[in-house]
């Protein structure tokens, strides 16, 4: 974990309300793995008061580059979207536990909903080096929000797009698209997902009976981002009937969905 200033190299608009930010910081780029996130201080004054967490969407350790992809939501992301090349961004990271792919495995499935696809792009790139098939499902509600994921992926990653407004790819929910593939015989050995909770819950539901390794990345409001404040709980089952609150920032953000209380 580092507290450092990362240099803004490029801010790019990828789709409506969706931006990518290319940063330069050698140690961050080297130390980050898929599933890790940055806790970024936006603005100078007292507002916004808290840092903002963003998944790392990719790195080029050689060049010392790393990237995040974010959607405009409120004041913080608005300020970020106006960053200029040369600006220095105060970053805390890499934080959290990343995805832990299986040792031996041929087919990985990744499901991203909206900007939740960001950490999966990073993961898909790494997985492609060691897997026979890497199948990415990417769902957006409106085609306008679709980011060009192919630009972030190496050749060979299979991209399956679903748009709820029917403007591209499968018309409907990304989970329905995936289900239809499962019905036609797709047999993933591990499944990664990141996106809105209802989407992730549907994915988890699909595998209820299966022995597939599943790792989902969760979001929660965060203060410290490092595990000190217990501000970012996720309810996790312990044994048969008990539950505890774990910290998304430090114990996650990646959790086994079977253990999560939805």
């Amino acid at each position, binding site marked *: 974990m580092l507290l450092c200033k990362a240099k803004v190299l490029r801010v790019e608009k990828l789709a409506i309300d969706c931006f990518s930010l290319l940063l330069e910081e050698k140690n961050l780029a080297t130390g980050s793995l898929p599933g890790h996130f940055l806790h970024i201080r936006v603005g100078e004054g007292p507002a*916004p*008061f*808290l840092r903002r967490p963003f998944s790392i969407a990719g790195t080029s350790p050689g060049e010392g580059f790393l990237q995040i992809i974010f959607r405009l939501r409120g004041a913080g992301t608005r300020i970020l979207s106006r960053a200029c090349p040369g600006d220095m961004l105060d970053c805390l990271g890499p934080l959290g536990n990343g995805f832990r792919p299986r040792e031996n495995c041929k087919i990985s499935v990744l499901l991203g909903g909206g900007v939740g696809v960001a950490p999966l792009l990073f993961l898909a790139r790494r997985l492609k080096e060691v897997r026979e098939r890497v199948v990415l499902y990417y769902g957006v509600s409106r085609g306008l929000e679709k980011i060009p994921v192919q630009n972030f992926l190496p050749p060979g990653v299979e991209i399956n797009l679903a748009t709820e407004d029917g403007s591209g790819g499968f018309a409907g929910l990304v989970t329905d698209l995936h289900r239809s593939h499962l019905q036609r015989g797709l047999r993933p050995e591990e499944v990664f997902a990141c996106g809105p909770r209802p989407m992730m819950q549907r994915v988890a539901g699909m595998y209820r009976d299966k022995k597939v390794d599943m790792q989902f990345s969760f979001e929660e*409001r965060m*203060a*410290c981002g*490092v*595990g*000190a404040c*217990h501000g970012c709980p996720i309810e996790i089952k312990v044994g048969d009937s008990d539950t505890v609150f774990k910290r998304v920032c430090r114990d996650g953000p990646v959790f086994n969905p079977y253990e999560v209380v939805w």
Partner: protein
Amino acid sequence: MIDLGTRLGPLKLKTPFMAASGTFGFGEEFASLMDLRDLGAIVINGLTLMPRKGNPPPRIVETPAGMLNAIGLQNPGLDVFLSRELPRLQKSQVKLIANIAGDTEEEYVILARELCTAGDVLIAIELNVSCPNVQRGGIFFGTTPSTLSSLVEKVRRVCTLPLIVKLTPNVTDITEIARAAEDGGADILSLVNTFQGMVIDTVSRRPFLGNKIGGLSGPAMRPLAVRLVYETYASVEIPLIGMGGIEALDDALQFFMAGAAAVAIGSASFSDPLTILRLTGELKNYLQRMNLPSLEGIIGVAHG
């Protein structure tokens, strides 16, 4: 030579800057960013006798120049703390202050007694009678003078370490409460805990936080906290630890001048984990510039 040390009755600190309870964990989370021995002290997260699960999410919401939290004292309970956390912390040479909360007087007494003899990494006990985010206990003890002085008295009897009582700002007259804690035998008062607040999510049309109500911290509340320190300073003899929205040296100076002999930094550590160290350096420069050999020269000066 500038001396940054400060004396709070029986408690001596290397610097007047502490990490506020609930915002710095046991310090370990930040250990890779700084040498924790440079901090005046770390008040660790609130401890209870039995484990506490804490409140349902969301527990945090940002507000103008501040935030609400409703953690609900999530902690592993005394036994696990003593057996699992403390041995590790013993080795660190960090100055820790235990923040304790009970449902009953007895729980406070047990917690204090056990912790006073648990190991010398703990240098003081802070009674949290001001947590706004739990159903029983906590704030209940901190709003009625007679209840508070009786509690403090009982804890005082078993407490061999310096005893700090942390006050809630959610009262009509904090000086009355402060005097009750002093009468009960508190060595030091620490003020203030968070102000009760609420944010409503206008989309779901429900209170945003899982606990509905949370506690406001951060710069937004700073002027309110400075006022409370100022008024309390004029009402009690024992030393004060001030806190609430401190981010910059000027903020800390306001608390010192209002009467605090030390200050704690809470939520500012979220946006800048190095806040305490930065302020320590800045205070040194300030005292130098002002030709003051120590902090003492400015404590309470705003009272004229």
